């Protein structure tokens, strides 16, 4: 009987707790603690240059958010406080703090964590209510425009361009989370907890040399602006490995403030915009012809004043009657007629095979989004007229890296090394694996043919017989080739009187270390490849040789005859 009385008391209390006052206790429990889930953000991988210096870097950051219901009362004061300490705009902040019918408004995004937390704590101490911070990592580009066209940038919610976009999956990593019980703001020891660890993103090691890239960009800008050009690019390749030490584009933009520049300035024109290479292509045609055993560097050619090709006539850039040039003279004087005439010695399909082996018409797949494969006419389209023009770089289009790698083949003794931009290997979003580990090499022309071509190219920078003395690098022997090609207009699809001027070369010529290729689109000062791109080549090459401590070899430039 006694026990029954006691138990009924217990029962009554139970009903009171669970039924009647349940809500009150639940609130009490929630206010003092409970289970919380925090996100463990994965750190986005850095994009590094070849020496491990960051081109893109992740910093832990916060967003500052406001609850307008609580902030609107003292909004003007708080807005002034935030404008001063967080460097945000006063008026837009005021608008956010007083937003109607809302309990959430952004005040500032991607603020370095220590600044955000400090400011919000100060605001709370000063009696302002309704501010909070949330996780919001900051992506920083410490070098601003250096390699910006390659690296790309992050938008508010994800990558928008460049390597950031191409390798996003690898860079992003996977966020984790942690759930645990808290009491009065402190974690309950031995309380229930589960952890899913975050997997940080993988760092992307590029082959870019930050300092050389910076210098190349500055020289390129000076060159494009100085010639009144529209755009331009410059490539520096390590001759032995095909690694891209610099790939500069102009116009460029500030990756830490991409909105300040138009969208068209933010991609890599060198990789995405095909163009006709012009006379630089003669190097490929004539070294192939030497390799095929049809000619040598001393072969004598009688070059007429003009050459009939189908229903068209080929001219040289300088008017002349019949002149006697050796093959070296054809390169040194950049004769279209001489090249076209010599290329008629090729058998059917032979030139196309060589150009394909040089890498024309195929993407280099170095990891740049939207790379163009250029345009090498197919076997079916190929005919004698077309071959005459392709021989000196018309009717064939390329991207900058293709052409740089092709010239590098001559520098490398006839062996083409795949160019690369990523050290080791990395997987793109589409699953392609790219990088130096994936680079292969194959022989295109014989060592002897490459050597003869190098000697011919040394004549190009000769002040007496060549067209580009301005491309010389003091103290070193340089081999190179100019290019001045007519541009195909955007609208008419025909040559519109504009030009692409370029210079490609390597040094030291007897044991090349670097291949440099400079292209300026649409210069308006009337200059050509030798006078516009030549000096830029000289500066960039000189800087690279100095930076990597390449001593002059003491060799003398070749003196093979250019006339007979």
């Amino acid at each position, binding site marked *: 009987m006694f026990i029954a009385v006691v138990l009924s008391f217990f029962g009554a209390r139970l009903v009171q707790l669970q039924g009647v006052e349940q809500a009150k206790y639940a609130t009490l429990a929630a206010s003092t603690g409970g289970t919380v889930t925090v996100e463990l953000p994965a750190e986005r991988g850095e994009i590094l240059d070849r020496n491990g210096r960051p081109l893109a870097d992740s*910093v832990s950051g916060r967003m500052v958010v406001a609850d307008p219901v609580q902030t609107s009362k003292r909004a003007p004061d708080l807005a002034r406080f935030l404008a001063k300490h967080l460097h945000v705009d006063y008026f837009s902040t005021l608008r956010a703090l007083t937003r109607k019918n809302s309990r959430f408004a952004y005040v500032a995004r991607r603020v370095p*964590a*220590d600044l955000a937390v400090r400011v919000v704590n100060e605001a709370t101490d000063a009696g302002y209510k309704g501010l909070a911070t949330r996780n919001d990592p900051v992506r*920083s580009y410490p070098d601003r425009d250096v390699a910006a066209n390659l690296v790309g940038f992050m938008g508010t919610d994800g990558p928008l361009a460049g390597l950031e976009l191409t390798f996003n999956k690898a860079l992003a990593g996977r966020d984790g989370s942690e759930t645990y019980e808290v009491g009065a703001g402190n974690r309950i020891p031995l309380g229930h907890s589960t952890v899913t660890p975050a997997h940080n993103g993988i760092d992307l090691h590029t082959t870019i040399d930050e300092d050389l890239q*910076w210098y190349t960009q500055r020289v390129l800008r*000076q060159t494009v602006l100085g010639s*009144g050009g529209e755009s331009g690019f410059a490539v520096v390749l390590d001759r032995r490995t095909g690694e891209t030490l610099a790939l500069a584009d102009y116009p460029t933009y500030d990756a830490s403030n991409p909105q300040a520049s138009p969208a068209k300035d933010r991609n890599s024109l060198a990789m995405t915009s095909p163009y006709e290479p012009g006379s630089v292509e003669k190097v490929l045609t004539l070294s192939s012809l030497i390799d095929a055993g049809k000619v040598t560097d001393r072969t004598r050619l009688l070059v007429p004043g003009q050459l009939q090709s189908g229903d068209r006539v080929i001219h040289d850039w300088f008017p002349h009657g019949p002149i006697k040039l050796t093959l070296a003279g054809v390169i040194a004087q950049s004769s279209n007629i001489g090249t076209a005439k010599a290329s008629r010695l090729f058998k059917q399909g032979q030139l196309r095979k060589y150009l394909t082996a040089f890498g024309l018409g195929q993407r280099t797949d170095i990891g740049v989004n939207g790379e163009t494969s250029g345009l090498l006419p197919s076997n079916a389209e190929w005919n004698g007229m077309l071959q005459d023009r392709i021989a000196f770089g018309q009717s064939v289009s390329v991207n900058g890296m293709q052409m740089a790698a092709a010239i590098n083949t001559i520098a490398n003794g006839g062996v083409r090394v795949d160019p690369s931009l990523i050290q080791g290997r990395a997987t793109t979003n589409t699953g392609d694996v790219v990088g130096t580990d994936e680079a292969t090499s194959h022989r295109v022309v014989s060592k002897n043919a490459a050597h003869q071509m190098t000697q011919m190219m040394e004549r190009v920078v000769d002040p007496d017989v060549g067209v580009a003395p301005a491309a010389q690098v003091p103290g070193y022997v340089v081999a190179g080739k*100019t290019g001045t090609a007519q541009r195909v207009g955007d609208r008419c699809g025909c040559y519109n009187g504009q030009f692409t001027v370029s210079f490609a070369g390597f040094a030291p010529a007897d044991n090349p270390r670097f291949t440099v290729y400079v292209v300026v689109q649409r210069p308006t*000062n009337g200059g050509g490849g030798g006078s516009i791109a030549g000096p830029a080549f000289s500066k960039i090459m000189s800087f690279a040789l100095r930076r990597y401590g390449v*001593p002059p070899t003491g060799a003398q430039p070749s003196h093979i005859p250019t006339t007979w």
Partner: protein
Amino acid sequence: MSSTAPAIRVRVPRLAGAALERARLTVVPKRRRRRTSPVPFLLVVSMLTVGGIVGLLLFNTSMQQASFAATGLQRQADALQARQQTLQMELDQLRDPQTIALKAQRMGMVLPSSPAVLDLKTGKVLGDPAPATGLDRLRLLAPPPRKPAVLDPPAQVTVVHPPATATHAGVDSSHNTAHDGGRGSHDNGGPAGRNDHTGNTDHKSHTNNTSHGTNH
């Protein structure tokens, strides 16, 4: 056999008697049990219990204490890590080649175009060394953004003809004016301030044009 049987029969009762005598049971004298006090046992048990409870309490308290400390330290670690990252970011910005180049150029330094290379083995100077000059200055800053026409009116050029007496000088200066005018109109399309920096390049390419023509 039969002769021995009565003898056994006789012996048996004797044996049984002795055994009986020996096997007589007596009550074992009851040992006096000493009554021990229950206090020590209870003391030990309660000490163990109390000790356990107090120990558990202390342990729990210390764990709570550690948890408070951990929360505080974690907050501090987060703050320090954020600080470190911000400082690293500032350092990277200070190490930006552009920043360094601007500072160096302000101090009057230029990149040499043709430095000397010293071979340490032979002590010989290689290359073609030449001292750097102001012409080696590299343009480091982007051109300023183009202003709207209202803010950037074309320069007013007044051509003043010299007095007719100095005929020779007159020809010279009129030639100069025409040349400058041409340059000015050429630069109108370009961004402001270009003239100062690119004057050199323009001049060079001009010379090259006359000697080589356009390379088509």
